[in-house]
């Protein structure tokens, strides 16, 4: 990694640094956490916001794109929980509004033995959470993650003890307003334990920065889905760091729908033998949304299996970016990694950038990647219409058929149904308004 020195902070960077200075004393956590925050802010100031000359940010020039955002100032509006699509699963709920936990809207009781769940701001930070916050950072420079580390005002702490499974799935609802919010979620699933986690992000805040770290013990399993349905003026930044143990499984799926600017980052290290899972997603973009998903998958040990599958449509003047970098270490024999990035452009002004990357240092592996960018298949359109189906309905059928191929990546039936229904409702809206 190169070291980037930010000698001349722009107004957004200066405003963020000033916001930190002003809020520092009021931010939750003890002395230890304050030290971590200070160090993170120092790194952020050195690095500055990432820009297009940094390879991983080539298609998403955050420094330029965030220039207009009013960084974290403004008043939070009264929170109101929207329909997140997960109600049928009767999940436990942690609700955050404007970067603060809202106890009266949350429901974190009755999850059963071995499940610890709390808000980061709720009291002294538990040792396990502090240790994870201190230790988990993406490899290399990451100014956005550091910014989150410095400024986090709240977040979900979820810990499932070894061998336990919560009685209900857990849902994290983040609603931003005004200046926005900075959250940090900390998730630990112990050896042989299981967790189903759903995230929903919405609101009209200027900037939402939601970082998360996930530790999966040996034989643990996490089924994670996220709906990013932010307002059209929001910058949504969401770096996630995962450390996956031996024979552990992570299935993480993100449905990207909204925001003005979105950057999902997944740094996943398969740190034990035979770890596996799917880090995938679907996107339905319109308007002027710029949505970037960037993956760093690190197969550090033998026998790992991973899938990175992304499918989506890009309409109007929207832009999508999907970068999937998979590294297979020298000793990680028998790794099986499959990447697929498929986008359909529905407008002449829409754009999509794919960047699948494979770095293989082992010699006995199966790795594949494929990327396609296309338009609606005119032959298929004609076939459907020649049977009497209208252009609008034929389009909707083909779009659904295309995008919903990605939903198969969601292994958990309930979560897949919820995400599919959410996406379908969005496509129906498109059809009605289109």
């Amino acid at each position, binding site marked *: 990694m190169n070291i980037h020195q930010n000698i001349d902070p722009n107004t957004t960077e200066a405003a963020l640094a000033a916001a930190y200075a002003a809020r520092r004393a009021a931010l939750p956590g003890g002395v230890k956490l304050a030290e971590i925050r200070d160090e993170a802010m120092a790194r952020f100031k050195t690095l500055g916001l990432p820009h297009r000359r940094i390879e991983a940010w080539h298609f998403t020039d955050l420094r330029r794109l965030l220039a207009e955002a009013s960084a974290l100032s403004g008043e939070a509006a009264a929170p109101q929980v929207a329909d997140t699509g997960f109600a049928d699963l009767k999940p436990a709920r942690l609700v955050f509004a404007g970067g603060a936990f809202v106890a009266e809207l949350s429901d974190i009781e009755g999850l059963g033995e071995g499940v610890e769940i709390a808000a980061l701001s709720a009291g002294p930070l538990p040792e396990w959470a502090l240790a994870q916050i201190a230790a988990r950072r993406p490899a290399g420079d990451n100014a956005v993650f550091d910014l989150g580390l410095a400024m986090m005002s709240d977040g979900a702490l979820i810990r499932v003890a070894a061998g336990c499974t919560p009685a209900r799935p857990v849902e994290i609802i983040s609603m931003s307003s005004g200046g926005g919010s900075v959250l940090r979620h900390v998730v630990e699933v112990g050896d042989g334990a299981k967790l189903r986690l759903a995230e929903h992000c919405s609101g009209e805040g200027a900037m939402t920065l939601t970082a998360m770290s996930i530790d999966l013990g040996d034989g643990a399993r996490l089924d994670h889905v996220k709906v990013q349905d932010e307002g059209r003026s929001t910058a949504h930044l969401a770096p996630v760091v995962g450390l996956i143990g031996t024979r552990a499984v992570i299935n993480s799926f993100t449905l990207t729908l909204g925001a003005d600017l979105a950057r999902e980052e997944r740094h996943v290290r398969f740190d034990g033998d035979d770890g596996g899972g799917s880090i995938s997603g679907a996107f339905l973009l319109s308007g002027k949304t710029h949505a970037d998903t960037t993956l760093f998958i690190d197969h550090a040990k033998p026998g790992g299996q991973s899938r990175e599958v992304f499918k989506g449509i890009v309409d109007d003047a929207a832009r999508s970016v999907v970068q999937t970098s998979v590294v297979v270490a020298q000793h990680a024999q028998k790794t099986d990694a499959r990447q697929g990035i498929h986008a359909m452009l529905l407008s002449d002004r829409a754009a999509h950038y794919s960047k699948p990357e494979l770095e293989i240092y082992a010699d006995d592996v199966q790795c594949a990647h494929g990327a396609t960018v296309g338009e609606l298949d005119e032959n298929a359109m*004609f*076939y459907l*219409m020649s*049977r*009497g*189906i209208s252009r609008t*309905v034929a389009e909707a059928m*083909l779009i659904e058929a295309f995008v919903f191929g990605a939903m198969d990546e969601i292994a958990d039936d309930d979560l897949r149904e919820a995400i599919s229904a959410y996406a379908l409702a969005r496509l129906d809206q498109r059809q009605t308004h289109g």
Partner: protein
Amino acid sequence: MSSDFLNIENLVVEVAGKPIINGLNLTMAPGEVHAIMGPNGSGKSTLSYALAGRNGYEVTGGSVTFLGRDLTQMSPDERAAAGVFLAFQYPIEIPGVATMTFLKEAINAQRRARGLDDLPTPQFMRLVREKAKALKVSDDMLKRPLNVGFSGGEKKRNEILQMALLEPRLGVLDETDSGLDIDALKVVAEGVNSLRAADRSFLVITHYQRLLDHIVPDFVHVMAGGRIVRSGDKSLALELEREGYAEFETGMGQSAA
């Protein structure tokens, strides 16, 4: 001679700026079966696409009147609702679209266009099962995505199943016999014959006479150079089988895709 059913007059169709059909005339009455034969590149498939309204098959001259309406001004779905059905030479595979969903959407779209209510699901299921059985379309095929993994014969039977369900006034069969063995050909031909009716006509496009042993036409036309150059009864097909198309291929001046 003209008809209220289908009247094609002096039709000119261009593909990518090149005329493929050059002044074609054809008249069909209700209940008739017309076969169009001709060498490769004579414009047979182009005629079928022009009738169904495929993009890129531009009518630049002449007229097509179907049941009193100007077909050339209608979109493919409007033509379907008006009663035109094209059985594709190469049916399209559409992964992700379930065959049953597609059939239901198609049937109901046409019912709505005719001012009818949607077919209730149990009735729809019964109807599909009944028609599928006759065409030896298995439940397994119906459960698969549209045409995906279907053999050539299965695809063609699926086309005829769609025709049986949609009950068009005019069925255009574009080389439905291509890629079929004799057993599959018989199943398809029986399917078509069972749909023959006093108010339904067929335009059977084929390169070989073989299909016409099973679907016996009232008229046979020879197409070459984008026109119908000779018409006759079913004996013309036998003559072509004997003599070949050589006579029509000389001095054509142009060939077409």
